[in-house]
């Protein structure tokens, strides 16, 4: 079989894939169990997203030749969206396969461990085996099962107790080979009192006449007591791409997880982000910026689950729909019985910039405890023609006026992103998308 040749996925394919990666037996069995769950589970239903109609059963796996070539076989370009690893610690994935790792001091000493997930499953069996699938269970739905069976771009990061890593780590996924689906699987374990900053980028460009890449990612992040994790994600996939993503963290006592999420571009994407606030006193913020162009369809769910006492969460999401794009924001704040003293906020705003654009905000508060604070605000609107007129009356051209208004709309979120590099990248991306 030559590189890129399509092959229908079945149980045997899953088994072969695990073998090729020299994965330990437990992991092979875990994949197979996931595959069985996939075959058993019904297709998930998502209101307002036709993505489910796409046959995930038609997913194509790389042949063994391609797998053997791996990431070193091809032309390894730096991820455009992240501006390359540029001397920072990074895992760069070119399509499926093991990443090219570049590790600087802070990720090679003090017991910090970074490796391709298949390798980590051998070298760090205990911790990987315990953590994998513990935040996002393979059996959660048909897609999580499929992803668990087939993930092919894995990464594991382990930060031992008390180790605080200041330098951000970049996980960059470059998805340019349409014949190969890319299934990123990220597992992060940050022990008690440790800290980590992670930047994850998904990027790709249209390849002429190609059917488009399929991407399905799961990121699980376990944060120990008093630990701190900041995750920034940037997605800029072309219109031919289809994606499905779950990124979820679980926070122990007094731990913090902060998200900065940027969804750009033209892809069809169903994504869920969130934190399980399991330990008392834990907290999580999510800042979300989405900008849909072309025929983009972003179905984004932000989910904060309050389980521990005195937990805090805050979702701030803004989206702009241009052209014929379609944005759906679901913000879900769940407060479980016993989570007394919870403080949960959410605010979503969506702006439609063209007559063909669509936007929906669906706020949800699911509260099962009395002694809590929770509020939400949601707005969906069109750009105000009076604002455009006003700016134009001062000599600013119409397109520039729109850009200003959009930037003004997104800035309150972008401004609050604590990672300077990510903030600047988002600003640049917004600027570029708006001035096409």
């Amino acid at each position, binding site marked *: 079989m030559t590189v890129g040749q399509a092959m229908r996925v079945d149980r045997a394919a899953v088994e072969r894939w695990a073998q090729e990666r020299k994965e330990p037996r437990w992991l092979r069995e875990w994949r197979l169990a996931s595959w069985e769950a996939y075959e058993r589970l019904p297709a998930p239903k998502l209101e307002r997203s036709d993505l489910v109609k796409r046959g995930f059963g038609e997913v194509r796996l790389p042949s063994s030749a391609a797998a053997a070539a791996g990431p070193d076989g091809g032309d390894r370009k730096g991820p455009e969206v992240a501006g390359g690893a540029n001397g920072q610690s990074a895992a760069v994935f070119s399509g499926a396969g093991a990443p090219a790792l570049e590790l600087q001091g802070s990720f090679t000493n003090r017991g910090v461990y970074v490796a391709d997930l298949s390798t980590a499953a051998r070298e760090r069996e205990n911790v990987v085996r315990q953590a994998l699938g513990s935040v996002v269970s393979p059996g959660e739905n048909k897609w999580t099962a499929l992803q668990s069976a087939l993930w092919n771009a894995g990464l594991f990061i382990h930060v031992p107790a008390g180790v605080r890593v200041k330098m951000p780590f970049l996980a960059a996924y470059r998805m340019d080979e349409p014949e190969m689906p890319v299934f990123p699987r990220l597992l992060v374990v940050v022990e008690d009192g440790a800290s980590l900053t992670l930047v994850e980028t998904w990027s790709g460009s249209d390849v002429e006449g190609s059917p488009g890449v399929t991407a399905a990612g799961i990121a699980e992040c376990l944060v120990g007591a008093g630990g701190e994790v900041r995750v920034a994600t940037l997605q800029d996939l072309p219109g031919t791409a289809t994606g499905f993503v779950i990124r979820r963290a679980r926070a122990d006592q007094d731990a913090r997880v902060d998200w900065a999420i940027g969804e750009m571009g033209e892809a069809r994407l169903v994504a869920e982000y969130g934190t399980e606030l399991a330990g008392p006193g834990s907290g999580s913020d999510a800042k979300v910026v989405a900008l849909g162009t072309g025929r983009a369809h972003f179905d984004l769910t932000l989910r904060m689950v309050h389980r521990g006492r005195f937990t805090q969460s805050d979702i701030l999401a803004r989206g702009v729909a241009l052209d014929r794009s379609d944005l759906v924001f679901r913000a879900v704040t769940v407060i479980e019985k016993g989570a007394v003293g919870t403080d949960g906020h959410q605010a979503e705003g969506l702006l439609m910039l063209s007559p063909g654009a669509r936007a929906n905000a669906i706020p949800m508060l699911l509260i099962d405890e009395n002694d809590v604070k929770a509020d939400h605000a949601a707005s969906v609107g069109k750009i*105000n*023609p*009076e*604002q455009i*007129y*006003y*700016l*134009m*009356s*001062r*000599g*600013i*051209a*119409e397109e*520039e*006026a729109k850009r*200003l*208004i959009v*930037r*003004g*709309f*997104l*800035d*309150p979120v972008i401004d609050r992103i604590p990672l300077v590099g990510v903030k600047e990248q988002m600003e640049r991306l917004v600027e570029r998308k708006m001035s096409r």
Partner: protein
Amino acid sequence: MANRPWLKVEQLHVSVEGTDILKGVDLEVRGGEVHAIMGPNGTGKSTLASALMGHPKYEVTEGRAWLDGEDLLAMKVDERARKGLFLAMQYPSEVPGVSNANFLRLALNARRGEGNEIPVLQFHRQLQKQMAALDMDPSFAERYLNEGFSGGEKKRNEILQMAMLKPRIAILDEIDSGLDIDALKVVAKGVNDLRGPELGVLIITHYQRLLQYIIPDRVHVMMQGRIVRSGGRELAEELEARGYDWLKQELGIEDHTVASQS
């Protein structure tokens, strides 16, 4: 620029959502002149201002207008502004997330043209100077454009923009409404400071009060969507003393609004 600014309006007819508002306005304003358009509410004064600026809701159905001899009505809103037309609005929009200073710099650079952008330092010096002259707190530079501004602050901000952009023809639409006497004096001083052969001003107001501080050269009274009487500053004083009724009687007008006649 050596040539004096020149705005000419000829038989302008304007309708809004199918209703005729202006029914033939003639007007000429040149650099160095201050014209005032007065008249009771509902006579079409603000419509004239918005139509000249090019608000999309205002449709010119007849007539012509020129700015410095160029066809004003053929230009888009931003082009009119870049050619030197300025409208201080009655209800300026709020634009959240866009700072006053950033907006002003973009506007100023658009007016100055590509390749002639103002150096940042020079811009900020100019801005601070103009803000001080208008008695504005320096924090206004970094506040979002008109967001949360009081009525008086918005009006001052309009005059600030005018001072920074240095238009050739400025239209001030009800710039006095909602201002207390102190704010009115500050705004009037701001306008007076800009007076000169390089600027023609058209003030729209229905109170004579403002005209005590900005002395007009010409006064026009608008009723039923037309200018029905023009005169010197003494006309404003006469209206101040006697109101509009005598004029209506003289002209045989019962209802001065545009709605009555179509």
